[in-house]
């Protein structure tokens, strides 16, 4: 048995016998309590010795030359996947946008409808609509999401909300690079270079 396999056994769902579905298969439909039992965890240094099949035999094994063992106490803990009363956002319309041009007080973007299929649209949006912490992300090619909908408060209030959120990926994704290469090839063909 490897240390990883040993670790796999430490989680217990309190109501596991009450439902056949796992906690995540019931995500958003119930509050679930989790438990970490107090136990020892065994960390193996490299190279790995031969591992016994039973956890109780772990103490008997000897590290191979150059290898090491560490036994560490894991403290008990309980936490819940709680679903406290909270505001809700109900989107009426969602778009994914790409910044095409940055201006002094606005930016030009191409929007793709995420709610239903439709042609891409170009819009000019004021920079004043961008959350302060996202302003640094507004640049040519930046991707953002624009959601319009209702925010319902726990207290019963409802207000119409328009939210811009810029994507914070650290790298260009493979899919985006392929899409960009495809667009570049299309442009090259238009100019007879393909």
């Amino acid at each position, binding site marked *: 048995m490897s240390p990883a396999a040993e670790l796999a056994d430490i989680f217990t769902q309190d109501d596991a016998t009450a439902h056949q579905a796992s906690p995540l298969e*019931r995500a958003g439909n*119930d509050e679930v309590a989790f438990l970490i039992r107090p136990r020892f965890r065994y960390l193996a240094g490299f190279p790995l010795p031969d591992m016994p099949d039973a956890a109780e035999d772990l103490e008997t094994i000897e590290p191979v030359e150059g290898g090491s063992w560490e036994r560490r106490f894991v403290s008990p803990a309980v936490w819940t996947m709680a679903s406290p009363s909270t505001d809700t956002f109900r989107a009426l319309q969602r778009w994914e946008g790409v910044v095409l041009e940055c201006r002094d007080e606005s930016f030009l973007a191409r929007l793709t409808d995420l709610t239903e299929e439709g042609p891409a649209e170009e819009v000019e949006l004021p920079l004043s609509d961008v959350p302060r912490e996202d302003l640094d992300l507004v640049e040519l090619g930046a991707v953002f999401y624009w959601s319009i909908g209702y925010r319902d408060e726990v207290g019963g209030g409802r207000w119409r909300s328009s939210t811009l959120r810029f994507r914070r990926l650290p790298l260009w994704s493979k*899919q985006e690079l392929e899409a960009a290469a495809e667009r570049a090839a299309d442009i090259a063909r238009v100019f007879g270079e393909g």
Partner: protein
Amino acid sequence: VTEPVSEQHGNALLLEGSFNPKIFQPAWLAAQNLIREAEFESADIQILHEEVVAFTLDWARLEVRRDQLTVLSTPTSETPEQVRDLVLGMIQILDHTPVYSVAIQFFAHYALEDQAERDKLGWTLVPPNPFKDNLQRPGMRTLKVLGRRPGASEDDQDQVAVVIEPSARIRPNGVYVNVSDHYSLAEPSDSNVGAEPAIGCIEEHWKDSMQRSRDIATGIFSVT
């Protein structure tokens, strides 16, 4: 076909692999510019433990154990892509993290008109006949259905799991549906795997998976 009650649906990404939970804290996400500074400051931390870290932002809930990383939307999430981008951002930075499988998940609560409509759905999905000799008013409590994706090759043994049960949010006549689209990427014994297959998997399948899950969920109601 009953449409989902739109303010009560969500999505999640579940990655199985080998993770160091202590890394995944709100401060780290902010330092990596994956969330806003204000979101880090208002994060609600449920647990910080060497075996598990769990906390909630306004728009996402993270839970990281040594063998599993989960990001779920919250009722105030604006768009499902927030969950996808956060997961992609984390594993792009931690690109040597072994990820063995990905599950793209969609869940929704549907409001049915009355108890009769919900009974009709339950008895259509699970006919009472096999139970009626020994049980009074047998009814479906939880139904889990497994199947392979349409057009899957013989080699592709990954399953889509659909769970249907009464909604705990919409009472008394709500129905909860959860669709979990599972993709195996590597065996846990594979020491060479990193996060790249998971990144490719999410990028390639996200859109189709979300659409298929919505179709599965709404399709359930077309049987009545």
